[in-house]
């Protein structure tokens, strides 16, 4: 016989103000199987938990029902409480009488009645609960970082620093990511390359870090602690082990029409190239679209010039399969495409540029060697107009509904740098709001206005059009309540950022969820911000939400500490709420195997006694509890009911249905 205790939480007044907790207590005390019912102000508090522990001992409880907030909030808390009092952690059920009851109902009568039904339903379920023990699995002491931007670099360095092996998979030919393209960083204005490249070098030099550049994740199998990942090393047509990065090949290449992606396509590069001087790995790559040899089997100059014989035109994609214990996703972002924003004339005017293009135009390693020249005629722009929120905070559907978060700060940075370097330049900034929370951020922005005399105009820009070689920026000045037109030489669009499109594919492979804006969803928005809902997969950088460099680095380090915490364990406790098969019932029909997304079900031929001293061999299903994730797809597919799920058994759910439908 089960002896159930019911614990009703007031949650301060959150529950007690709308649910008559005394009545719930009285009603539940009378339920069959319930031997003790009590209510308390805060069940999750230390005193509340102590009350539960005492009751378990005093009333020899075999299971507890806590009527409180959502199980997503405190189920784990109360499981620990039960365990501490000697109960099995899975002899705990939560009746969600806060989110599903007190918070959405106003009428006390109605809410109280519903709370009683919800509590009874939980009692009906727990009466069929059985103690469960989680299985244990080993942990592969190696982490995979997907994405080699600053987020991935930081995470990898921190994990390596703790003594674990890390592999970085970067789809581009070099690590460094977006930060490598930046000129200066706010709010200190130190050069981006100066702070990033040492970290890149550290990655290359670390004996714990292995970089798979120009590579992509092909396939992911397994589960926390034991991921099996197949990595596709795309053919770069240059032997990484031989290439010294001398650059002779680049100089010899006759094809020079390739667009320089690193410089935002603002200038050209040869067909064989090293993305930028500090690239890691410092190895050349051939662009098959541009290479004459690969396209038409003519040329072959680079191969002849290469002193170490590193060029291999016949190289093909290769695959590496590795095991990992944890995975960090750091796939980063890109500026959105501006196809929906014709009003700003981006497609038609070379001198309308995005902020990331401006970064390259101002960078000493950029196409203009750091002198700010406008792309159309190479002249110094005298009037520069910035337009903020291009595609951000846009509910029209053309852009993104969210704030890209970094634009206010980098626009202030750009304005300031230009005014400092070229004091004769006039700088205007159209903004909707200025958002500069963060340490030394607002001060930074104010310096732009107060010290550097940047003209900030509150208002939206209606259109940008070319008139006699001038870019006419027509907008409204909301503070002066008038329409203005600013003839400009260069227009800079603070373009919204969006997750790199590769994230969708990665999310599917890792079975982690994505929100409507393609940002990866964290396990808990506030309390588990760097974990994905899939155990063992962590999120760093803009793939999870817009953020600047310091925030990205913080999140990456947080990820690393989570990964280290995971890899430090020798054994992981699994989820005991997995499928199991009643072999006596199983017919071996194979349907469960066909619906299992994890390949957790296999079949074995087993001998069964059939009475009269005889045996028969039957084919029966067998579940690998370490691989099963507990979705329950198999349980419904099984016609004989041989498959069932621990923690959510068919009999339990039927009892819940009955309890709810009891009038």
């Amino acid at each position, binding site marked *: 016989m089960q002896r159930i205790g019911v614990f009703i939480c007031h949650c301060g007044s959150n529950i007690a103000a709308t649910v008559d907790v005394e009545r719930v207590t009285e009603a539940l005390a009378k339920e069959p199987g319930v031997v003790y019912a009590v209510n308390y102000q805060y069940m999750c508090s230390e005193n509340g938990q102590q009350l539960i522990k005492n009751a378990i001992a005093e009333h020899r409880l075999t299971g507890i029902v806590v009527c409180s907030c959502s199980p997503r909030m405190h189920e784990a808390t109360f499981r620990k409480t039960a365990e501490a009092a000697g109960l099995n952690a899975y002899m705990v059920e939560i009746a969600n009488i806060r989110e*599903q*009851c007190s918070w*959405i109902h106003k009428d006390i009568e109605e809410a109280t009645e519903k709370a009683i039904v919800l509590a009874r339903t939980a009692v009906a379920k727990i009466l069929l609960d059985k103690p469960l023990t989680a299985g244990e699995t080993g942990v592969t002491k190696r982490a995979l970082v997907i994405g080699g931007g600053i987020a991935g670099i930081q995470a990898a360095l921190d994990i390596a620093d703790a003594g674990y092996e890390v592999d970085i998979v970067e789809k581009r030919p070099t690590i460094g990511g977006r930060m490598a393209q930046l000129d200066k960083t706010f709010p200190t204005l130190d050069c981006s390359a100066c702070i990033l490249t040492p970290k890149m070098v550290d990655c290359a030099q670390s004996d714990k870090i292995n970089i798979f550049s120009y590579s992509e994740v092909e396939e992911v199998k397994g589960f926390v602690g034991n991921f099996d990942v197949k990595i596709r090393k795309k053919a770069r047509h240059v032997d990484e082990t031989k290439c010294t990065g001398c650059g002779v090949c680049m100089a010899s290449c006759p094809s020079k029409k390739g667009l320089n992606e690193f410089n935002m396509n603002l200038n050209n590069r040869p067909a064989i190239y090293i993305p930028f001087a500090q690239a890691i790995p410092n190895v050349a790559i051939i662009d098959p679209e541009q290479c004459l040899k690969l396209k038409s089997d003519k040329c072959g100059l680079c191969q002849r010039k290469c002193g170490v014989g590193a060029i291999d035109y016949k190289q093909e994609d290769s695959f590496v399969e590795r095991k990992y214990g944890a995975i960090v996703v750091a796939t980063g972002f890109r500026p959105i495409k501006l196809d929906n924003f014709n009003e700003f004339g981006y497609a038609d005017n070379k001198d309308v540029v995005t902020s990331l293009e401006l970064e390259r135009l101002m960078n000493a390693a950029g196409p203009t060697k750091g002198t700010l020249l406008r792309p159309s005629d190479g002249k110094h722009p005298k009037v520069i107009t910035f337009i903020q929120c291009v595609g951000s905070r846009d509910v029209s559907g053309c852009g993104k509904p969210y704030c890209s978060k970094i634009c206010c700060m980098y626009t202030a940075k750009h304005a300031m740098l230009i005014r400092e370097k070229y004091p004769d330049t006039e700088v205007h900034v159209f903004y909707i709001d200025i958002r500069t929370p963060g340490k030394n951020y607002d001060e930074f922005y104010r310096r732009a206005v107060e010290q550097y005399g940047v003209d900030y105009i509150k208002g939206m820009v209606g259109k940008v059009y070319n008139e006699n070689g001038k870019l006419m920026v027509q907008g409204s000045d909301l503070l002066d309540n008038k329409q203005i037109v600013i003839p400009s030489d260069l227009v800079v669009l603070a373009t919204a950022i969006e997750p790199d499109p590769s994230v969708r594919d990665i999310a599917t492979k890792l079975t982690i*969820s994505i929100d409507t804006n393609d940002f990866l969803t964290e396990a808990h928005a506030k309390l588990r911000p760097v974990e994905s809902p899939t155990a063992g997969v962590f999120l760093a950088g803009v793939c999870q939400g817009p953020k600047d460099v310091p925030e990205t680095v913080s999140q990456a380090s947080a990820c690393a500490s989570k990964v280290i915490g995971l890899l430090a364990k020798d054994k992981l406790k699994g989820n005991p709420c997995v499928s199991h098969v009643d072999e006596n019932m199983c017919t071996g029909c194979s349907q469960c195997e066909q619906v299992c997304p994890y390949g957790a079900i296999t079949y074995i031929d087993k001998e069964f006694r059939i009475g009269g001293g005889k045996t028969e061999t039957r084919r029966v299903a067998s579940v690998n509890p370490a691989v099963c994730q507990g979705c329950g797809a198999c*349980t419904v597919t099984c016609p004989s009911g041989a498959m069932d799920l621990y923690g959510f058994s068919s009999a339990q*759910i039927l009892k819940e249905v009955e309890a709810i*439908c009891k009038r």
Partner: protein
Amino acid sequence: MQEITTTHKPLIVAFCCNWCSYAGADLAGSSRLSYPAEVKIIRVPCSCRVNPIFVLKAFQRGADGVILCGCHPGDCHYSTGNYHTRRRMALMFSMLNYFGIEKERTRIEWVSAAEGAKFSQVMNDFAKTINELGENRRLEDLRCKK
């Protein structure tokens, strides 16, 4: 047995997957987005855990409406669970209608963890439909009624 009342109090069973819809219900709660108290939620790990037997059981026991909520297709925490749900329930709901259960009494909705407002709106809408339909013809047999 309870005394017979003239006004029928509707009963709605909502199966919610733990990862999306149950979280969506939590969000509806924490956003104080109300929906009728006749909606009672049963938490399941995934919508694909919902056996058609559960739906039938609910109707047998006097439920007036049954709704399944899961992650949006493509967003299943278990990657493919809700695709199975979609097929199974399309067939099961069609069959229930074949047996004379009004098609409005069964519903599937995809509600993400971020869609607290949608959850509340779906439940309000469903409850309104069920209220309008009134008491369900129970799936019972004449032979047993005697």
